[in-house]
């Protein structure tokens, strides 16, 4: 059964680096991992997507180890405006293109 899990909540302080890990069992070699950010009363917004090893863009990095059973979203030097819920999404192609979101991680950034 394809399952995507992540911590329910995390706290951090402004200026710190935040790492949020997502576990995804039964991930196949051609499955992508995508992270979304959601603010209250808005739909989720794309942050970053990866397939293997490391991907970096202007807002985040995504680390995927060789076994691909987990992945880590890294937010450098968070600010108060990064307070949001972060979702991991895995597209399990070997399970019939099943798109499975994790339950979301509520990140609270404190001053």
């Amino acid at each position, binding site marked *: 059964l394809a399952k995507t899990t992540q911590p*329910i909540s995390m706290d951090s302080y402004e200026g710190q680096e935040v790492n949020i890990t997502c576990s995804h069992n039964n991930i196949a070699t051609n499955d992508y991992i*995508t992270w*979304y950010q959601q603010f209250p009363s808005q*739909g989720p917004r794309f942050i970053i997507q990866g397939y293997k090893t490391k991907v970096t863009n202007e807002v985040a990095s995504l680390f995927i180890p060789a076994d691909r059973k987990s992945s880590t979203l890294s937010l450098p030097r968070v600010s108060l405006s990064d307070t949001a819920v972060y979702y991991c999404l895995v597209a399990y192609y070997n399970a019939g293109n*099943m*798109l499975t979101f994790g339950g979301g991680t509520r990140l609270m950034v404190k001053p």
Partner: protein
Amino acid sequence: DVKVTQSSRYLVKRTGEKVFLECVQDMDHENMFWYRQDPGLGLRLIYFSYDVKMKEKGDIPEGYSVSREKKERFSLILESASTNQTSMYLCASSLSTSGYNEQFFGPGTRLTVL
């Protein structure tokens, strides 16, 4: 910018009513999705469509149906609304089925069934 719009931000219906939630995207995307979002459960896929008149069941299709008569429009139908369908409903679209493409979400419809 891609824009995904949903017909209502808030909706209140009574048990047993037929409910239509409409979603429109303006970027000629092939794929469209309907999710429901509940506290502690994250987003769960109800149905998705990869082409006009095509649909696939997601994780929780029971009690729902969908319609995609035009490429830009994807409708979610609750044939007989029940109180356990009170939730936030999110529509999304993505470009194609080759590889996996970024999903663009609408603002959501908060449905309350009394």
